[in-house]
């Protein structure tokens, strides 16, 4: 498989580095599915989304299988994630956020597992694609905005009106506030996507150095790669956490409008 990758990388790149660092992000169709004009082909991205969803299900259902009073290993992990997200939601939104717990939990676990699975060699990182992160972030943004209007009605527009500002400046500041509000889905999705992509690209670039520098020179980039892989695992967790906590903060804004 490494040979395959190297070969296709070389073909794509036209020589130079043995490995194309962007090759890992390519979406490849496993089997094509079409509904009329709509392409719903099952790709490697689809595969890893299903694997992530499947593993989360496995952890939370099979892990909790015994439902014992004194938890085993898997059960501890499942309970720990439950309480982690539950605390996050309570700290940032309060009791009003309880309704959204299943959503935030699903979001956090899905993103976390997609990020973590991406750390495996030969896997595909679902969250390294802007379209995926942007879809998640847009959904959150639209849902939260609708929620804000549902809870506060037209009063929600006050969210865009800063307090204690001269009336003359108000129209300008309201426009700026609206633009600032509209950047939320972009910064949310770009942050996750860029972190995932940058880390993985770096790893592949250094992997290319290991091969290019051969048996003697390759140890330095290899050592760097080992350290960087550890860092990347941390980043994978941190980005899932940031994604979830920002969702909580947006929820809080919509519910409580400080």
């Amino acid at each position, binding site marked *: 498989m490494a040979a395959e990758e190297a070969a296709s990388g070389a073909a794509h790149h036209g020589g130079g580095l043995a490995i194309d660092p962007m090759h890992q992000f390519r979406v490849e169709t496993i089997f094509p599915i079409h509904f009329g004009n709509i392409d719903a082909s099952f790709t490697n991205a689809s595969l890893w989304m299903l694997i992530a969803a499947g593993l989360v299900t496995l952890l939370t259902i099979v892990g909790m299988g015994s439902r014992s009073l004194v938890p085993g290993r898997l059960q501890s992990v499942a309970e720990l994630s439950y309480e982690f997200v539950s605390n996050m939601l309570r700290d940032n939104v309060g009791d009003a956020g309880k309704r959204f717990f299943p959503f935030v939990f699903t979001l956090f676990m*899905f993103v976390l597992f997609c990020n973590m699975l991406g750390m495996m060699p030969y896997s595909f990182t679902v969250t390294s694609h802007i379209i*995926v992160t942007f879809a998640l972030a847009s959904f959150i943004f639209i849902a939260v905005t609708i929620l804000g209007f549902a809870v506060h009605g037209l009063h929600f527009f006050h969210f865009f009106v800063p307090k204690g500002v001269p009336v003359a400046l108000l129209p300008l500041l309201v426009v700026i506030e609206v633009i600032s509000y509209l950047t939320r889905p972009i910064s949310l999705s770009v942050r996750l996507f860029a972190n995932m992509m940058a880390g993985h690209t770096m790893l592949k670039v250094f992997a290319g150095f290991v091969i290019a520098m051969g048996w003697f020179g390759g140890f330095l980039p290899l050592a760097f790669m080992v350290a960087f892989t550890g860092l990347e695992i941390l980043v994978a967790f941190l980005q899932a956490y940031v994604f979830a906590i920002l969702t909580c903060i947006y929820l809080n804004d919509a519910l409580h409008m400080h």
Partner: protein
Amino acid sequence: MPQLAFETFIPQLIWLAISFIALYLVMSRIALPRIGSVIEGRAARIASDLDEAAASKRRTDEAVAAYEKALAEARAKAHGIAQQTRDLLTAETDRQRHEIEAKLAEKIAAAEASIRKTKEAALANVRNVAIDVAGAIVTQLLGEDADKAATERAVDTALKQV
């Protein structure tokens, strides 16, 4: 950049929606209520165990208090019995002592009475003997019988001077 391959967007979005919604349904319908109930069950169990422990502690404290009270009562009772016994014994001893003393006093009185009687008898005898002796001495010295009445008077006078 493969991220900008637009033809892959639609299938990615479709499968994202499928997997995310499926996961959401499984989590919200099955997994999370289950984990929640286990955690709540454990919290309830711990709370009830703590309550039970507190109740046991209270019962122990009560038992200790009851024991100490019983001990104090027993001690007081023992003290009372000892006191009572001591009083009883003292009273009995006193009574016996009084009895003996009374008896002794009686005996002393009887002895004193008999001594006095003997003494009186002896004194009476001494008078008679003195009268007889005095009569006899007078008879011997004068050669005639002494006047009995005069002798008796003389002896009485002499006895009063003793």
